[in-house]
């Protein structure tokens, strides 16, 4: 089990398209990827789950990952959040 803290940089928060990118990235790993915001934990491989977080710009999230490729998954997802999914950062 690995854990990492990430911050939402995207101006409009995690909307559906962004949720899709998170789910796509998480689904490539065998590990179970959970995303947590203020005590609410959802499966990062579920579109509606990620959307349900309603993570706005500035929100702090926690990644809880467990499985054979957990470190790889954590690095990839943290990287995506840090670069704001290749989007412009405002």
């Amino acid at each position, binding site marked *: 089990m690995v854990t990492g803290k990430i911050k939402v940089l995207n101006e*409009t*928060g995690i909307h559906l398209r962004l949720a899709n990118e998170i789910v*796509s990235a998480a689904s490539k790993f065998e590990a179970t990827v959970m995303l947590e915001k203020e005590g609410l934990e959802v499966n990062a491989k579920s579109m509606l789950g990620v959307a349900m977080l309603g993570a706005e710009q500035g929100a702090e999230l926690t990644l809880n990952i467990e499985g054979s490729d957990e470190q790889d998954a954590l690095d990839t997802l943290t990287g995506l959040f840090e670069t704001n999914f290749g989007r412009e950062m405002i």
Partner: protein
Amino acid sequence: MPQEYTVKEFFEENSEEFDLEVLTDNLGGPIPITSEDIHRPAFALTGFMENFLHKRIQIIGETELLYLESLDKGQVADAVARLFSQPLPCIIVTKGLDVPKKLLDLTVEHGVPLLRTTMQTTEFIHELTGYLELIFAPRTLIHGSLVDVYGVGLLFSGRSAIGKSEIALDLVERGHRLVADDVVETVRHGDAILGRGREHLKHYMEIRGIGIINVMDVFGIRAVRIQKRVEVVVQLEDWDPSKDWDRHGLDEHYTDILGIEVRQVVIPIFPGKNITVIAETIALNHMLKVYGIDAAKRLDQQLLDMMESDKKTRRYLLYDHE
């Protein structure tokens, strides 16, 4: 699209519909019908020969005949002769009007079929043009199954043996209507693509393991439909875990049929997956979109609104020093 359409075929298929009679003996004109447009040769009769579109069906109505009546005998001969300076597919006189002898003589002489309808000129031209548009419309055969699901035309496509016929059969069993299986003849009509079965294959289906069945015999008349507009193409693909499938449906995908963009939905399939229910949902969701209700867009907007207000609260608290 037929390259040419003979006057004989035209007459045999439409003599009742357009209330047509043949005034000449032959129906084999010098040239076949090659255009969906018609021409009224009034100007050619008067001697203005530019833009005399002789390859089209020539419609002679009251205007042309009144003009001929106003002329003396010699002038009539000259006027009518101008029409035959070029080969014509056929001449159709409207409103059941009497044909001047000179015109009849020359049509016989030049072997041009002369037909007459009892219909009014404007109405006849309107219906004839509509009919010819269909005859000359671009058409193509598509490998797939077309089913009317809740009134929405779903065209299932995908590699052979992926299960298109089985899905169609399952839908029919649930009360939907089969238009064509395996080979769908599509024709462009305005901005729409119409699909139907080939004349002799109508409502036959090949189910692996059973063989050939006739859907109308097995399920009755309400299980079939002759023609349906193709509204959504459901592309069936083998499930591939490395491929990214559409999860949100915010973006519309289209495929080209005869130059028209038709909505396309790609569905991954694997054993045990109930495609029939998914197909029904595709049809219902399509109808909702037609009515302006888009679930994905609405959810996205709700999310954006909620996050925007959370952001404002966060900012307020951040600068709230008391």
